[in-house]
């Protein structure tokens, strides 16, 4: 390139320093949490200090190393290691959550686009869309299970539908907001080029809405995991993390670390979903550096 007006580093030059800094920060926070956890446990156990009715002992608050250690113990006598069981369960739940996310995000985006183009529909439907989110999942889950079952769909699909139900809402709301975020003069520009609605949507409004969309996708990604886990409970599906949570809940008194370990894996699954969306955002959204944050 002949001349570079600005000393901006190339986008593809990998900056190691911030990554390193982040890694150090991540480890430092994890270590601090560990210290906090163990200190609280130690203080509680030696002084009998309690938070309200929350009594600290190995049952209510196991050692962190016991929780992690539990992952590498057999899940039952002569059975596979707990981490193998939870890995399979996490994959199962991930499938439900991913399909749910895909359905929810597509439906949410499409709904947002339709409502953006019709104030009439927006006014008419919006109250019901909001109301849909106030319905408890436990109330609609049995209906979804029966509906999908009667159509010969696999039972995990009903869980995906429940996850989608939790996922579409933030996407719709942020699509609506994002499509309106295009610069008014950029819209005038499109009109001056005699661009039709379709071109204006795909060449201006959707690209302009991407930062909003990805904010929604991040919320939706973690919500889809939560939705899948919760959805497994009333659907009586045993193969996922929801089933594992239910199962280890029953054996909590004999082995508290198993439930904690399951929660840990569930959290890691949610974080993985979030990171995937954040990674895609990094690849897709091209913005001035100060806009990326």
């Amino acid at each position, binding site marked *: 390139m*002949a001349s570079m007006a*600005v000393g901006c580093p190339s986008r593809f030059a990998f900056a190691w320093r911030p990554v390193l800094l982040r890694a150090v920060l991540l480890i430092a926070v994890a270590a601090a949490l560990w210290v906090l956890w163990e200190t609280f446990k130690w203080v509680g156990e030696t002084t009998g200090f309690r938070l309200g009715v929350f009594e600290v002992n190995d049952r209510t608050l196991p050692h962190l190393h016991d929780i992690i250690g539990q992952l590498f113990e057999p899940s039952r006598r002569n059975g596979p290691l707990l981490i193998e069981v939870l890995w399979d369960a996490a994959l199962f739940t991930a499938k439900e959550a991913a399909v749910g996310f895909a359905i929810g995000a597509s439906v949410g985006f499409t709904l947002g686009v339709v409502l953006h183009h019709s104030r009439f529909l927006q006014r008419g439907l919006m109250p019901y869309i909001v109301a849909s989110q106030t319905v408890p999942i436990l109330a609609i889950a049995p209906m979804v299970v029966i509906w999908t079952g009667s159509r010969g769909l696999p039972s995990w699909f009903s869980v995906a539908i429940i996850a989608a139900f939790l996922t579409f809402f933030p996407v719709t709301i942020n699509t609506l907001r994002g499509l309106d975020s295009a610069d008014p003069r950029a819209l005038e520009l499109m009109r001056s*080029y*005699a661009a039709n609605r379709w071109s204006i949507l795909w*060449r201006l409004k959707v690209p302009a809405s991407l930062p909003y969309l990805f904010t929604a996708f991040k919320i939706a990604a973690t919500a889809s995991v939560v939705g899948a886990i919760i959805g497994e409970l009333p659907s009586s599906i045993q193969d996922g993390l929801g089933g594992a949570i239910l199962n280890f809940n029953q054996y909590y008194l004999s082995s508290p670390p198993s439930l904690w370990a399951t929660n840990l894996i569930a959290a890691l699954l949610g974080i993985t979903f979030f990171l995937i969306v954040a990674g895609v955002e990094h690849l897709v959204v*091209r913005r001035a550096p100060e806009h990326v944050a």
Partner: protein
Amino acid sequence: MTEAAAVSLRQVGRTFAAGNVVALEAIDLEIQPREFISLIGPSGCGKSTLLRIIGDLIQPSSGEVVVNGKTAHRARLDRDYGIVFQDAVLYDWRTVARNIALPLELAGWDRARREQRVGEMLQLVELTGFEKRHPWELSGGMQQRVSIARALSFSPALLLMDEPFGALDEMTRERLNAELLGIWAETGSTVVFVTHSIAEAVFLSTRVAVMSARPGRITQIVPIDLPQPRTQATREDPSFFELVTRVRAALHGGSGRDTDLSLAEAE
């Protein structure tokens, strides 16, 4: 009606519904092909509104607008004009080359033709080598040059410019003024140029239309007969100062109507 006129305005008025504000009143203006006409006036005189009426981005409340011998609406659909705003309004997610190619994509040009034309336009605005850059990697002046290249990419006969250099520093502004005149001479397009700056209007234009506010109207049209091509020396020519003084006098009540807002309101 003159068939040959690039833009013809007849008794054009615009009233904004909110508060019955008369933004423009009885505007008559004929702009000939290859003319460079500036609209100058105080804030609120409706010069930007007038530009948008010519571009069919705002509808007039009354009167007739003819662009290239057609209705303004038809002219917009035929992509007869390019427009440049005060801010470059580039799409952050597109490279410089793809920003310039945007109107060509919309007009259905194939990729090979687009690439060739983008190359030519980059040369015209002296940005060759920057095609893969993103807008936020460029300075304000460079961004505005991309915006001009985009507006001219499909060779419109008419170029509408709404204070295109208003946000730039004086040095950049003068350099881009000179570049714009070069582009104007090269492309042979008609330019309608909205500005706040008297010196800029005089330096660039073949005619300056002086406007007053409340209601917005054209009070005087000052022909600028400075020789072409205009250079840095033009700015130091006594006749340049003379014309600047004339336009300034016209701005400050050339029609007996004072443009000072407090006085205008007292009427």
